[in-house]
C-alpha cells in the first residue's frame, strides 16, 4: 500500500515542479527572397562596431511598459539571444541589404579601400503593448583608410512603429523600426562618403 502512494506523490510532485513552457522571440526579420540585386556596391568597406542598449531591457526576458511607470518583465517570453546581439545582428543584416556590402567586423579588410565603421548607442527601447514600439538611437559613422583622412559623423534617430497588444505584434513592430533605422543610416552613409559636408538626416 505504501509504495503506490509514494509513487503517486512522487509523480504529482514532479508534475507540480515542472516549469511553464517558454516562448522565444527574435529581432532578425527573415531573409527576403529575390532582393539580392538592385543595390550598387559602394566604394567603401563596411564594418559594424559596438552596440549599446539601455540596462532595463538588457535581460533575456521581454520587458514591456505598463501604466504609470511600471515595467513588466515576462519570465516566459524571452529573446532568443541577448538583446545586444539581437539588435546588432538585425541592424547589421538590414544594413548589408541596403548598403550592398557585407559587414566585415572582425575580418581582415582590403588595403586600399576606405573602411566605414558604425557605432550605435540605443538610448530607448520601449515596447508599449497596444500603442507602439519605439527605438531612440545615437549612431556614429567613421571613415578611415588610405587616400582619405579619418573623419566621423554622429547623428541620432528616433523611430516609432505602431503595434498591437500581442507580444508578437510588438516584436514585429521593433523589426520594422530597425529596418527603418537601417534605411536612414545607409542613405546618410552613401551621401556622406561622397560629399564630406553632408549633414545628419
Amino acid at each position, binding site marked *: 500500500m505504501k509504495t503506490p502512494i509514494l509513487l503517486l506523490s512522487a509523480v504529482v510532485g514532479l508534475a507540480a515542479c515542472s516549469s511553464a513552457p517558454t516562448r522565444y522571440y527574435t529581432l532578425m526579420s527573415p531573409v527576403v527572397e529575390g532582393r539580392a540585386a538592385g543595390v550598387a556596391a559602394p566604394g567603401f568597406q563596411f564594418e559594424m562596431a559596438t552596440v549599446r542598449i539601455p540596462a532595463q531591457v538588457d*535581460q533575456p526576458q521581454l520587458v514591456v511598459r*505598463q*501604466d504609470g511607470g511600471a515595467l513588466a518583465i515576462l*519570465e516566459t517570453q524571452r529573446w532568443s539571444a541577448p538583446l545586444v546581439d539581437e539588435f546588432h545582428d538585425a541592424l547589421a543584416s538590414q544594413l548589408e541589404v541596403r548598403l550592398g556590402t557585407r559587414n566585415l567586423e572582425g575580418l581582415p579588410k582590403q588595403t586600399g579601400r576606405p573602411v566605414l565603421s558604425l557605432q550605435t548607442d540605443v538610448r530607448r527601447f520601449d515596447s508599449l503593448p*497596444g500603442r507602439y514600439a519605439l527605438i531612440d538611437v*545615437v549612431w556614429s559613422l567613421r571613415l578611415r583608410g588610405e587616400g582619405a583622412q579619418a573623419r566621423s559623423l554622429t547623428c541620432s534617430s528616433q523611430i516609432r512603429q505602431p503595434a498591437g497588444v500581442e507580444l508578437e505584434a510588438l516584436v514585429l513592430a521593433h523589426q520594422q523600426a530597425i529596418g527603418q533605422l537601417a534605411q536612414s543610416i545607409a542613405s546618410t552613409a552613401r551621401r556622406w562618403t561622397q560629399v564630406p559636408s553632408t549633414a545628419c538626416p
Partner: protein
Amino acid sequence: MSDHPGSKQSPAPGTPAVRTRRFNVSLVWLVPIVAALVGVSMMINNSLSAGPQISISFLTAEGLEANKTQVKYKNVVIGKVTAIALSDDRSKVNATVELDQSAQPFTADDSMFWVVRPRIGANGISGVDTLLSGAFIGADAGHSDKTSKQFVGLETPPPVTYGQQGKRFTLHTDDLGSLDIGSPVYYRRIQVGQVISYQLASDGKGVDVRVFVNSPNDQYVTTDSRFWNASGVDVTLGANGLKVNTESLSSILAGGIAFVEPKYSPNSVPAAENATYALFDDQDTALAPPDGEPRYMRMRFDQPLRGLAINAPVEFLGVNIGKVVSMNLDFDEQKKDFWTVVGVVIYPNRLGKVQAKLIKEWGGEDEARSAELIAGFVKRGLRAQARSGNLLTGQLLISLDFMPNAKPVVFDQNAKPLEIPTVPGSLDKLQEQVQQVVEKISKLPLEAIANNLNSSLGEMSKTLKQVNGEVLPQMRDTLVQTRKTLASANDSFSEDSPERLRLGQAMDEVQRTARSVRVLTDFLSRHPESLIRGRLKDNQPDAYKSTSSSVREPEPEAQP
C-alpha cells in the same frame, strides 16, 4: 571608688564571679607601665647610640641642608648634618654633624671633609648623581691619635685620600704647561697616578709638580725613569715630515705626564718615596741618551737660505748630530755680497761608538784634537750643504758630507768657533736631473715614429673612402627596411589582425558567461520559489493605456 560587682556573692552555683579588686587594678595598670617602660627604653637607646658630634666649617653652605645632608664614606652613610649656622664673623658656615657610633675614627685630627657636588675637573665629571640625590659630605678618616671636634672642610675633594697606597714623587720643569691637579700620569699609556699639587720652585726658576703613583704600579718608577709632558697633541713638522703624537684623549683635555724607563737601563731599582726627576717636553727628548757637550760651529752660505729654521737638524752622513741655533746676514765688503752665517751646535756624543773610536785614534777629546780631526775631514772633502729636507714645506737642513770633487779650501784650525766650508745647495742637483731628462728625450727615435704616423694616416683615409662608398648606402637600405618592418608590425596590431580577433572573441565569451550568471541571479532574486516550483506562466501584459504625468509620450526630437 566605684562599684564592685565582683564582691557580691552570687547565690547561683557554678558561676564563680569572685574577682578581687586587686587583681583587676593591677592588670589594667600594666598598660601604662609598659608604655612608660617602652618610652624610657627608647630614650635610653637614643642617647646611647648617639655618635660623636663634630662641627665642620665651609666657605658656603651650597647644597647642604640641615637634617637632610648625609656624610658618606665610600658611599656608606656615617652621619648627618643636624644644623647649619653662620659663624660669628659671617665669613664661614658651620655645619653641625652627628656621626654614627661606628664613625669614631673620623674624629681624628687629620680627617678631611669636603662637599661632593657635581664637578668638572681634570679627571672628568664627578659626582653627577648628586644632581638628583642632593649633595653630601665626603669624609676621609685620618690616622692621628688626637681627636677634634672642629674641622675645616675642604672646598675641593682631595686628589688622593689616605686609604690609597702609592708613592709620591717630585718633578721639576720649566713651566706648568697644561698640567693641573688631577692630570693623569701614564705608564705605557695606562693611567697609574695623577698630579696632586704644584708650586713654584723655591728659586722661582721652575715649577715643582708633585705626582702620586698608585701601588702596585709605583714599583715601575725606577731610579732612571724618564718623565715627560704628554699633554695635548704633539705635532711636529720637521725636515722628517709631519708627526702627530698623543697619549690619550684625556691627556689632550687635561694634560698628562708619562714616564718609562729607558730600554737598556742596567741597574734599575724602584725609586724611593719623594724622589725628584726632571720633566722633559716630549718623549724623544726624554728617552734620548744624554747629548753630552755641545760644540758650536759656524758656516757661511752665499745663497739665500729660505726654509732653514732655527732647530733645523744638522746631519752628518745622514746621522742627526746637531741643530741650527742661529742665522744671521753678513756683508762682504770686498765682493759687495751678502752672506748668510749659520750657527750650529753639534753633539759629538750622538755619533756613539764612532766617537769613541775617533777619540782613541786621535788620542784625546779636547778642543785642539777635535779641531785637528775636523781639519782632516775638510781636507778629505767635508763640506756643509743646505739640502731640501721636505719638498712639501720647503724646509732645509744642513748636511755635512764628503764631496768627492770639492775645491780645496783653506781651513783655519784655530778659529773659534770652527768654520766649516760650504758648497752650493740643491739647485745644482736640479740642473743635473733636467740634463738627464733631456738626454733621455734625445735618445727617442722620433723619425721612425713620424714615418709610422704618416703611413697610418694614409691607411685611415683609404678606409674612410671605402666606408663612404659602400657601407653607408647599405646602411641606408637597412634603415628603409627597418621602417617597412615597423609599418607591417603596426598593421599586425591593427584591428583586423587575427590576434586581436581571437582576443575579442575570448572577451565576448567571458562577457556572455558573466551575463548569464547575472541573469540567473536576477531571475532567482525575482522568483526564488522557482527553485522548487519552477517557472510560472506569465499573464498577458495589459495594453498600455494611460497618459499620466509620470510618463510622457516621447516627442520626435530635433536632430543633433
